[in-house]
């Protein structure tokens, strides 16, 4: 990665046309300082990630702290520690259901916020903003206090209810931007051609909003999958992947946990990079065509 950034710096330097020196004083760092800093910063950001991935190949039985040699066993026998796999399965289940619920509820709210006038607009905005501005401990403790008062026993269902709650606001924020950039003339054209409101929505509005909705769903999934604090307050005996890591932290974490985290990381990062490269190719083609 530092090579990519390095190449980018080199390109930047090449592309700048030679300028007549205006005055001798420069801000100290010079032309290369910022690029070098960025490379070091990227390396720093990646250190614990590389560490986690490397230690997923560590040849250990129980506590994965000291390097004891390279092995693929942990990747082949992921479910050798059944608790790790079970926790991972729970996390996936929670994230999928919470994402579906939050994306549906949030997308509807985003459309209403951009497209319609209604009373209590400020109240609605605050209702959406406050969960994002509230620390997770407070969200978690509040819900747990509520479940306690209502006599609800905690488990997978309460985790899903909690995750849906904090994901909605992020869905609204993400989809809202997409709705706002949507050209209303496209929908008008549909209406002019005698499409029913349902047809206009499903054939025009929804496909145009889809990239925003997908982005929102991915964000929700990521937030839910990695959430620990709110889960810890509302999970009871149910164990998600982060909760498993937390409880195992004191007695040593099996390398299989690193395997799962590394696999999730690699899938996510490869997906993002493919999306960006293909968007880049499309941009270039559009620029050529234009």
């Amino acid at each position, binding site marked *: 990665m530092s090579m990519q950034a390095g190449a980018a710096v080199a390109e930047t330097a090449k592309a700048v046309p030679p300028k007549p020196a205006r005055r001798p004083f420069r801000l100290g760092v010079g032309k290369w300082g910022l690029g070098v800093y960025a490379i070091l910063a990227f390396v720093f950001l990646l250190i614990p990630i590389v560490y986690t991935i490397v230690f997923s190949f560590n040849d250990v039985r129980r506590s994965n702290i000291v390097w004891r040699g390279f092995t693929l066993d942990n990747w082949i026998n992921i479910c050798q520690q059944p608790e790790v796999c079970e926790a991972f399965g729970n996390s996936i289940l929670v994230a999928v259901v919470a994402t579906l619920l939050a994306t549906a509820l949030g997308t509807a709210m985003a459309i209403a916020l951009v497209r319609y006038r209604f009373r209590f607009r400020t109240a609605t905005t605050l209702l959406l903003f406050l969960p994002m501005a509230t620390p997770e401990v407070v969200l978690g403790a509040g819900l747990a206090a509520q479940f306690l008062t209502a006599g609800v026993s905690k488990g997978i269902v309460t985790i899903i209810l909690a995750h849906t709650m904090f994901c909605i606001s992020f869905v609204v924020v993400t989809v809202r931007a997409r709705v706002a950039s949507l050209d209303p003339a496209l929908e008008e054209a549909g209406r002019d051609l005698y499409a029913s409101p349902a047809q206009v929505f499903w054939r025009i509005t929804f496909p145009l909003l889809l990239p925003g909705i997908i982005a929102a769903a991915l964000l929700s999934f*990521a937030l839910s999958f990695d959430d620990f604090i709110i889960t810890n307050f509302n999970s009871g005996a149910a164990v998600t992947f982060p909760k498993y890591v937390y409880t195992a932290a004191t007695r040593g974490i099996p390398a299989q946990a690193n395997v799962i*985290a590394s696999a999730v990381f690699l899938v996510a990062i490869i997906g993002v990079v493919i999306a960006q490269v293909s968007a880049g190719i499309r941009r270039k083609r559009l620029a050529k065509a234009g």
Partner: protein
Amino acid sequence: MAFGAFSSATPVAAEPAVRRRSPIALFLLLPGALYLSLFFLVPFVSLVLTSFKAPGEFGDIGEYDYAFKWENYVAVVQTYWPHIARSFGYAAVATVLALLFSYPLAYFIGVKLRRFPLWQALALTLVIAPFFISFLLRTLAWKQILSDEGPVVTVLQALTVLPEGAHITQTPAAVIFGLTYNFIPFMCLPIYTSLERLDLRYVEAGGDLYASPATTFMRVTLPLSMPGVISGTLLTFIPASGDYINASSAFLGAPDTAMIGNVIEANFLQLQNYPVAASLSIILMAVILIFVSAYIKRSGTEDLL
């Protein structure tokens, strides 16, 4: 734009469509609004009520009755003021460090890489890469890298920068370091969004008017990127002040680095002392709301999302 800056890179259309009144709006809004009322507002009220509760008649553990025992707050502040001070102190230092780390990086990505959209996108991916790996595992990774047998301590002791027998983990410095690392992407992305939209002609104009680069930065670039700096500060400070992973003894901290979050967790989940946990939560929330309302006063509610 406070939190919007975080996730929406696409600029909102300049002229929004005319907003209509329609019963459809209610149909679209009601499910989500009801959900948030039920699982955010009601629990919050419940937390406030819990914070005033008094021990039950029979004094059983975890049994409390509704009351208006405002003395709970006095007791909590008297007992836990070091934790409260630590939380906001650590969070403030971590926020400043994250800002100092992120601003040059965001400037490089948003301004220097602007002509290379693909490199810019890949650089942004590197900034958010830590999000894709488990928060707890990357904190544990730092714990092991910074541990007494780890490479950092070994090297620093060989260079005699660190005295023999000194630790890095289990110190306030390690907790602040962990908070800084974990929330850097929250700081970097909003600043990037602001700088990415910065019109470079203003910067050129500064140079043309014989301002030094430092003056141009202080008078042009920095003020124009303030919205991003403010969003990033909120997005870092809020979760950092409530965090209890980094400060936990099993991760980078020790009992004497415990923050509000650790006390809330222990009182709620282990000691079942719900009023203490609830009143500490309300205190944490109150302090944060002061910050947030100062922000709202500055930029209005329409820009919140």
